[in-house]
């Protein structure tokens, strides 16, 4: 199934996200070999670009992927609507699906937080761009101090918000808030997204506010845990950085006075294909690549065990 110690992977969807992911897989393939970029538009620029780079491309969509039994991992960068069907077909064909759409047919994954727990899944979901950016930091706080409430505010450049995000903005809010709770570990989560039309475009910015359960706060433990997590995310998203050390403030809340921690985060894209300001898209493709790499290594290990 594998050759040269690599696992064959395919990208489904030849739009901006699929193209940026393609460049990431070419630049840093790790244990993966990009075997196919599949779209559904014969005239797609993305498919033409892949061919010009020597990557096989097809406009037969998922059919082309299913026809090649060597492809083990499929990145779906289409739409939630299309992924519902893709998820079923990929599962039946025994392929691993890494879902970049909000379809959520499989468990949510954040690479440095919970990916290890889901390596036996056939389908994993990457939540939202804002979720990939903010959930690791909420988790970093909640693992050292119980979190009553986490709120994230994502500000992205208008130009980096595609029609999918625009027509389904409520789904961003619901899905991200749920991710803050389920994976971030907050008792309650809230998500806000703002599109900023400034020209030149702004870098993706996220603010994370956390209210702690207890007033007995070990600031140093929280700051250390956050710093450690930033380093862990930087390993696969190099443009991920906190603009300031954590800010601690006392706030009156509906549940009485609470310690609030504010984290100001900026994500600069790697500029693989999409512009640098589109950190929101970069963190999705970078996370997807990271998840693919971990799955690929796991498949290779399993194969080695079977072989020995």
């Amino acid at each position, binding site marked *: 199934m594998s050759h040269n110690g690599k696992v064959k992977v395919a990208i489904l969807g030849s739009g901006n996200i699929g193209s940026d992911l393609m460049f990431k897989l070419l630049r840093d393939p790790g244990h993966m070999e990009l075997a196919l970029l599949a779209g559904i538009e014969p005239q797609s620029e993305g498919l033409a670009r892949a061919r010009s780079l020597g990557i096989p491309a097809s406009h037969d969509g998922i059919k082309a992927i299913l026809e090649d039994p060597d492809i083990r991992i499929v990145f779906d960068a289409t739409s939630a609507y299309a992924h519902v069907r893709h998820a079923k077909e990929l599962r039946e064909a025994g392929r691993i699906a890494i879902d970049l759409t909000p379809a959520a047919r499989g468990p949510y994954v954040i690479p440095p937080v919970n990916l290890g727990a889901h390596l036996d899944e056939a389908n994993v979901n990457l939540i939202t761009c804002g979720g990939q950016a903010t959930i690791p930091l909420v988790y970093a706080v909640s693992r050292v101090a119980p979190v009553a*409430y986490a*709120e994230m*505010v994502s*500000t992205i450049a*208008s130009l980096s918000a595609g*029609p999918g995000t*625009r*027509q*389904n*903005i*409520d789904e961003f*809010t*619901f899905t991200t808030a749920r991710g803050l709770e389920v994976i971030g570990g907050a008792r309650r989560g*809230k998500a*806000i*997204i*703002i*599109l*900023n*039309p*400034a020209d030149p475009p*702004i870098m993706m*910015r996220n*603010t994370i*506010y956390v*209210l702690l359960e207890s007033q007995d706060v070990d600031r140093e433990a929280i700051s250390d845990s956050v710093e450690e997590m930033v380093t862990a995310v930087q390993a696969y998203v190099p443009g991920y950085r906190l*603009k*300031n050390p954590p*800010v601690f403030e006392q*706030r*009156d*809340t*509906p549940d009485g006075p609470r310690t*609030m921690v*504010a984290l*100001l985060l900026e994500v600069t894209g790697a500029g693989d294909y999409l512009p640098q300001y589109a950190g929101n898209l970069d963190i999705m493709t970078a996370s997807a690549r990271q998840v693919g790499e971990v799955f690929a290594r796991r498949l290779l290990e399993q194969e080695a065990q079977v072989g020995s």
Partner: protein
Amino acid sequence: MKPPRVTDTTLRDGSHAVRHQFTREQVRNVVTALDKAGVPVLEVTHGDGLSGSSIQYGFSRVNEMDLIEEARSAATNARIAALLLPGIGTRKELKEAVERGIQVVRIATQCTEADISQQHFGMAKEMGLEAVGFLMMAHMRPPEFLAEQALLMERYGADCVYVVDSAGALLPDGAAARVRALRQALKIQVGFHAHNNLGLAIGNTLAAIEAGADQVDGTMRGLGAGAGNAPTELIATTLDKLGLNPGLDVFALLDAAEFVVAPMMPFQPIPDRDSIAIGYAGVYSTFLLHAKRLGQQYGVDPLQILVELGRRKTVAGQEDWILDVTLELAQRQHSTGKEAASA
């Protein structure tokens, strides 16, 4: 010219000025007084719209859904409206607000981003609501551009689209030109929402009406974000003198402003130093109290914070950037201070 419909948003825009601390009793008193005075639409929501209660914008003292219910039960003729900013509030809260009594929803987007409102207009029309579009921070784009965005909202099902001068940065000519552009492009009604940061809320509102605005907003005593809004009682008085009174009881409004609303106000919003800076720099009016608080906390001049936020072209809802800019300016002051000390 015909008499415009006046919507009072004391209990929504005014929520900013009272840091979202309205009580049920205050809502009941304001609604009762304005209903009697003939104001046809009253907006009741957290200042940043449904689901605005947050660390980012400030927590509501009383759940806005309870305030909406209170308002509906106190109103006889007036219709109750809620504000919704897609990205902050969702269809889930819209549905609940309808169940608790709203009959009108005002759906607000940054004036360049109307296409994020389609699903919300769709639901509003499905639920039989009157749906009003709000193009916020309207000073940031020219009239023709706004008209194109307004056309999107019209296509999604809006019954009216407002030019919203969220920064109180427009001059009368600019307000009129924007209203006129929408009037020419749209089949539906056009509205205008003013802020008084440059002392022009009433002047801009009158200019908008002359340019053909069908609907305008006011708040009692101008209670609202920044230097506040066009005072509803003043809109009524000036319309009456123009022979355009849409059926408002001027003296009843003067009484309500003086005896119901003024006593509950923590301060009278006026175009003071920091508010004028908001209008001048063209930033979101609600930044005022956040910039004042953070400026005091970190020893930075709020005026400098607001001007810097304008330079960065922040838009509605970006309150978190106030902290960001404040920290940067504090850091800069600190390092220049050190340089000065070592020189």
